[in-house]
């Protein structure tokens, strides 16, 4: 009689997920708000899970914007250096510092509680040109020109392309949660 093969056991995973809370203002008034669900990249998941092996502290997280021009898609394999389906929108200054070369910094709450980490203090983009944006991302580089070997932690798409005039601002927060499922 043929032996029944045991099915390969399935195992569940550590799940990481989060969202961006984005507020846009024009002439100081709220123009729109959106909670943008995110997708974590492969590099982000590997960064997280390797903390169990031999973790290394990752500092200096920054927000970036995804240009709607030529936007095609987000990919799980996107890195800050290579993201074939989208380009970064960089025509802004950081309101808090006046810098034209920096990305707005993400400052997380400390410590993590209830398996959640979120934004401690806001950081804001101010458009230097009229912009049409597809989405937002979080990365571990706070300087626009530094992309080599940098991780794109998460990307998120707006429900529809978002327009902002010169001088319009975007403030983004980010929350990440961890659970088992």
């Amino acid at each position, binding site marked *: 009689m043929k032996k029944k093969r045991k099915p390969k*056991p399935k*195992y*569940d*995973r*550590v*799940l*990481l*997920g*989060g*969202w961006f809370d984005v507020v846009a203002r024009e002439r100081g008034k709220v123009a729109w708000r959106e909670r943008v*669900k*995110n*997708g*974590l*990249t*492969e590099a*982000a*998941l*590997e*960064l*997280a*899970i*390797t*903390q*169990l*092996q*031999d*973790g*290394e*502290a*990752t*500092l200096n*997280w920054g927000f970036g914007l995804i240009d709607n021009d030529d936007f095609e898609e987000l990919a*799980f394999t996107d890195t800050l250096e290579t993201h074939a389906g989208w380009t970064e929108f960089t025509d802004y200054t950081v309101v808090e510092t006046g810098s034209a070369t920096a990305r707005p910094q993400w400052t*997380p709450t*400390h*410590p*993590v*509680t*209830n*398996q*959640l*980490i979120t934004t401690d203090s806001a950081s804001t983009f101010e458009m230097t040109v009229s912009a049409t944006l597809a989405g937002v991302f979080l990365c571990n580089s706070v300087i626009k020109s530094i992309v080599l070997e940098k991780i794109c*932690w*998460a990307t998120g798409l707006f429900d529809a392309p978002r327009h902002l005039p010169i001088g319009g601002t975007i403030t983004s927060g980010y929350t*990440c*949660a*961890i*659970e*088992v*499922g």
Partner: protein
Amino acid sequence: MPFYEATYRGPGKPWRLRLRNTIALEGLDHLLGSALDAQAPFSRPTYISLIAETGFTEISDEDTAASHAGWQEFTDYIGSTRPVYSSTLDNATLTTSTPAIFTLTASGSIRGFFMVNNVGLAGANSKGSSAGVLWSMAASDESHSVSRGGVITVHYTLKAAGGHR
């Protein structure tokens, strides 16, 4: 849940277990914090040890390395320190590269396993220590007998995935 796989060979009846585990909330907080917030990260190595049948009532995701009212550690194996768990990473999955091996010095009964990391601080490798961050535990539905001279070998697998909220 990720899982432990363990075998027992030696005097008495051999057994094999595959246990889905409970990840400690302390461990989840620490993993998220060490990835995103420069919290003292987990460091090599990570240690695995045994949960005793004696006094066992339950494991809980609220257990910590310092406090686990429902279980105690089984420490009757060779050496003063907990065995090391070494892993390899592939496609956001950790699998065992070097399993944890326990050579038993007394007979008894085992209920499960746990994993702890010293997060760069001293002490979590010592048997019976309450130091470090508890990552996970697993408990069988029943006890499993072991004998002096027997060997338990333990593997652990963990996968990470992204989810939208």
